[in-house]
């Protein structure tokens, strides 16, 4: 069934169609419609789930971990300050190997208060041991959540599915809501690899000395190394069932491009238009969307960036005292290509619009080798 819906309601439908059994959530702009809709799904009996109306995001994440440890499929959604409040429990979820899924609406961190998009909230959680998906459109949001559960439950690693505030959360787009039967086939009922069970009592997460802790983290990374293969398989299976193709990255007119943009989130759509316009004007531009940020697709980034004349990484985020965060990752992927110029452009923090003309200007700067490492594009001085 196709329906014109907002990103937020897409997230609610995703919770429903994945048959999430426990949802524990707390409202925050711009995520509130997600919880409102899930509440009504639960109240109407459209969704067979327990909705725990917790008193904070910290508790939301804790409750999801608990539900998952008890053997149920658990889901929540949040944004910025809420995700930051969860931080301790994000580590807990990953280290406890509970495969929960969280949708995070990218929103700038305060102060000053901002409700508009940028990626610093989710990127601050980069090292918590979660899989990170960045979404470009609402269909992507729905499908990513469905896929995330499957990947997470296979490798016992939780997933964050990330979408831009307002540009997706409050923007209506046509979304194929997917057939429940097909989703059930793709994502069967959750069978936990381990769970809390009085008939088979174990202690989880007790004091662990230096002689063993190290190996537990090594095991987590070992499973992270499996994620890419699992994802590639899941994408294939998804394509067969639902007819839509997904990858860890998405190249757009990248193969013959001389200048390549590296982008994420909704900027990816704008970048595609910029590519089309640039080509008409005679500039061989292409783009590469990073859809999966963790595990970082080093292999694919290498593959698509190799041999280009210049790379322009656009970051809607910043690591203060450091650099654009996607830029750091891309540079590290291209370490073996010392002669490839990789330029860093910061844009769109706090929801500042990044229009086609901005991206075209950035592409031209990259073509001319102009970059202040980084260039804060459009900053009013």
């Amino acid at each position, binding site marked *: 069934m196709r329906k014109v819906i907002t990103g937020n309601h897409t997230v609610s439908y995703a919770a429903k169609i994945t048959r999430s059994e426990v949802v524990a959530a707390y409202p925050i702009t711009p995520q509130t419609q997600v919880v409102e809709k899930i509440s009504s799904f639960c109240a109407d009996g459209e969704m067979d789930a327990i909705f725990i109306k917790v008193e904070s995001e910290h508790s939301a994440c804790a409750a999801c971990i608990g539900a998952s440890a008890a053997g149920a499929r658990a889901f929540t959604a949040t944004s910025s300050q809420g995700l930051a409040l969860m931080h301790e429990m994000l580590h807990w979820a990953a280290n406890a190997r509970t495969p929960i899924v969280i949708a995070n609406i990218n929103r700038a961190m305060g102060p000053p208060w901002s409700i508009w998009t940028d990626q610093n909230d989710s990127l601050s959680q980069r090292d918590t041991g979660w899989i990170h998906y960045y979404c470009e459109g609402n269909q992507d949001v729905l499908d990513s959540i469905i896929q995330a559960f499957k990947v997470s439950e296979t490798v016992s690693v939780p997933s964050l599915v990330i979408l831009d505030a307002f540009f997706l959360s409050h923007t209506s787009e046509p979304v194929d809501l997917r057939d429940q039967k097909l989703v059930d086939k793709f994502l069967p009922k959750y069978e936990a690899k381990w769970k809390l069970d*009085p008939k088979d009592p174990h202690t989880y997460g007790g004091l662990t000395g230096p002689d063993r802790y190290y190996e537990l983290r090594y095991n987590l990374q070992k499973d992270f190394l499996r994620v890419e293969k699992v994802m590639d398989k899941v994408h294939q299976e998804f394509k067969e069932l639902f007819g839509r193709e997904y990858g860890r990255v998405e190249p757009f007119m990248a193969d013959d491009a001389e200048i390549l943009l590296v982008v994420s989130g909704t900027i990816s759509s704008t970048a595609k238009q910029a590519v089309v316009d640039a080509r008409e004007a005679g500039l061989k531009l292409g783009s590469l969307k990073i859809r999966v940020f963790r595990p970082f697709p080093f292999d694919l980034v290498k593959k698509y960036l190799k041999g280009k004349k210049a790379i322009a990484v656009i970051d809607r985020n910043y690591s203060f005292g450091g650099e654009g965060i996607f830029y750091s990752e891309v540079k590290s992927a291209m370490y073996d290509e010392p002669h490839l110029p990789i330029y860093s452009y910061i844009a769109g923090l706090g929801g500042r619009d990044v229009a086609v003309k901005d991206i075209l200007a950035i592409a031209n700067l990259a073509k001319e080798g102009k970059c202040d490492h980084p260039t804060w594009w459009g900053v009013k001085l």
Partner: protein
Amino acid sequence: MRPSHLVGGKTMKTTIPKEELVYSGHLACQGCGATLAMRYTLKALGQNTVYSVPACCWSVIDGPFPYTSLQIPLFHTAFETAASMASGIQAGFAIRGKGDINVVAWAGDGGTVDIGIQALSGMVERGDNVLYICYDNEAYMNTGIQRSGSTPVGAWTTTTPPPHFKKSPKKDMVAIMVAHHIPYTATGNIAYPEDWIKKVNKAKEIVGPKYLQILASCPPGWKHSSEISIEVVRLATSTRKWPLYEVENGNYKFTRMTRKFVPVSEFLKLQGRFRHLTEEEIDVIQLLVEEHWADLCAKAGIENQFADKLEGYTEKVKKHHPQWFHIEED
């Protein structure tokens, strides 16, 4: 044959279940009250039980990975999440048709009255079917005896060194729970295991949130020798400093009545953490005991047999009471 013994020629039978769900070989200190609290609690709850345990001494007592001293599943969790984790576990069980499992949040006093109070309040307000148990050793013991909101007036801790000993009163967590309209809440004391087991059994049968708080001595934290762990906490109840009572749907009931007057100094003097107190300061603590007792008697609707003890305090003692107990240095 266990466990009956002869008293005055009559045979007395203990009602404490024989089943042991705490193995020997745990990592507690000698004379640890928190460990006895766990042992008695599990005797009442039985095996169909799952624990959510935040950072506290019990994070360590249970044993280092891969060992455990409990015969029930235990999920270790972050310091402030005993309640929220338990709510999630309970929901996970309930949606899978296993709502009969006793889900217990087991936390220290710091994890309960301080950092975890928000999650606990949320859990109780929502009405989640969780039994929350606070073992109260009256300080952050795991991290080396720092004051908590449950540390009593007058106590030394590493963060309340005399003359800056704890000046503010212990939080009345049971009253806070009553203010949440909780179906059942009660106090306990490891020196009174039968009273405790009755309360745990009662709580177990109630669907909804339950809050129990059991006073548990801590020899290294309270500074007394380990062999008097029981004697010390028993005095907490016989001096009426820690009365045993329960509140069911708002109705207060004493589960152990005290008839004989034993001054609170009897409890205080056994412990190094109160050693610095002057007589006047001890008088203030006695006055706090009398006031709390009078308040409980009024709530339980019984006559206060110790009403006369409320009188006769000097103006100086009263002046330093009730809030910021602060005796000026002469």
